[in-house]
């Protein structure tokens, strides 16, 4: 029987809209899996639904969630404090694959889409694999560049793009990634991506043109997170699939992008 309760260890802002939440947890988690979290008590029904969050970091006895405040749920979440009990269901879904033959892996992320990848890198390292790792991370501006030092410290080549041009390449991260591919600066065996829909589409297209295997983590509104509500489906070549069960990570070629 899976546990569905946890306790807050810490909750702190690291920038005006990004926060880190530490929660008690023990057990195996694959990178890219997620949890359903209820950041308010069970007996208040507005907002009604739990919210899905990936895992940023796993540590002894707990997990850390990197979250961005985008609406009511995440705003309420900033009020959590040490010792608060929360409903936490997971780990859920299928995470990112990692194959033995991969020599170079590129990660392309936008905004809070960076969240699942720090754990991924932790996990790859723990497996004893050391492929070349590059992160392409984009955001509007400085405010979306949280945590990238940690990637650098972990030995990942970090490339930045900001739409306002306040740091790194001025423009979209997918454009920078494409340019580097064209220049031969990166030659990934596979691409892993998480971020806004438009970016994912772009990355999928770039990879398709070059025949690079690409895996994307999709963000959908979720009713249950455990496969019962059928609310989170995405159109794939094999019909509707549940993002919470068959995903959130899909091979990009499986997705019917026009309908996303």
């Amino acid at each position: 029987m899976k546990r569905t309760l946890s306790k807050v260890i810490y909750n702190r802002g690291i920038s005006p809209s990004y926060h880190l939440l530490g929660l008690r947890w023990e057990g195996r988690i694959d990178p890219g899996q997620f949890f359903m979290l209820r950041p308010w008590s069970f007996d208040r029904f507005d907002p009604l639904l739990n919210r899905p969050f990936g895992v940023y970091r796993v540590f002894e006895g707990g997990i850390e969630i990197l979250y961005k405040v985008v609406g009511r749920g995440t705003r309420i979440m900033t009020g959590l404090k040490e010792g608060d009990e929360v409903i936490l269901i997971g780990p859920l879904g299928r995470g990112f694959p990692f194959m033995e033959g991969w020599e170079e892996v590129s990660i392309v992320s936008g905004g809070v889409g960076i969240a699942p990848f720090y754990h991924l890198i932790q996990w790859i390292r723990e497996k004893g694999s050391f492929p070349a790792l590059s992160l392409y991370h984009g955001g509007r501006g400085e405010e979306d560049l949280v945590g990238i030092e940690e990637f650098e410290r972990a030995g990942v080549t970090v490339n930045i793009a900001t739409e306002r041009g306040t740091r790194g390449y001025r423009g979209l991260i997918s454009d920078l990634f494409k340019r580097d591919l064209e220049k031969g600066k990166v030659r990934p065996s596979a691409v892993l991506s998480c971020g806004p829909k438009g970016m994912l589409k772009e990355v999928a297209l770039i990879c398709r043109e070059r025949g690079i295997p690409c895996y994307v983590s999709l963000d959908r509104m979720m009713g249950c997170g455990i496969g019962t509500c059928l609310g989170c489906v995405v159109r794939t070549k094999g019909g509707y699939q549940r993002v919470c069960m068959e995903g959130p990570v899909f091979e990009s070629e499986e997705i019917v992008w026009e309908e996303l």
Partner: protein
Amino acid sequence: MGGTVDLSVDIGGMRLRNPVMTASGTCGYGEELAPYMDLRRLGAIVVKGLSLKPRPGNPPPRMTEVPSGLINSIGLQNIGVEAFVRDKLPSLMDLGVPVIANIFGEDVEEYCLLARRLDGSGVAAIELNISCPNVKKGGMEFGRIPEEAHDLVREVRRATGLPIITKLSPNVRDIKEMAMAVEEAGTDAISLINTIPAMAIDVERRRPRLSSIIGGLSGPAIRPIAVRMVWEAYQAVKVPIIGVGGIMGASDALEFVIAGACAVQIGTATFIDPAVCEKVLKGIEEYMDRHGIRRFVDLIGSLEVS
């Protein structure tokens, strides 16, 4: 559990160990909930609505959140009755809990074919979802017109020996009239309510939040409406009533029971806490202990209105 108090209840010939069931469409075919709760604790399992042929369901977005509620338009996605009987039913039956098959069709014949197919399959009862448009009769839902609902139930009654639970739509002028119509037609029980047609708009994009524009509202927002309908139906019919709609905890379930329901179904709440059915059951036991009520059936319709 169940040691000191008697939670058992009869519904149309089915004997349930306790009155707490899952609601159709919110527990898949049971297996998804299994990691979170002991399904054998349930009074019954009501599975996702089944049609003759598999259905892909509606395009996304299929769900949106509203105050204390959820609007869904899954579009009755399901694997079809054949695959259900072949692939899902056997392991469900191993649990030793009555399995109730929720079914829907586009016309009376489809309902009858489904009911016949399930007869002898091992399911304990069928629940008729009549909130579906009758394509042969101009597209108005069976569940909105007493005469149509009556005729549908009467035909299904002839088609199967299984207990029939008719699930009423809240979208009616008078729930008493509907309840009486299906009772007259021979239903063994009534469940109510199904979701309430509702709509939400993304004002920034001036677009509906659901691909189907209108969906069904569920969750605590609809509970006071559902409790009222159970209470009204309880005055009008003798067949057992199963209460559904926005039950989040034991006290909500007890509202339905006190209003006249002999069992309850829990839907949306399982999305928030997949183990909620067990908690509701425990809460009902505690309540009965506290109030010195030994038999659950004594609670049914016990509202004092003087």
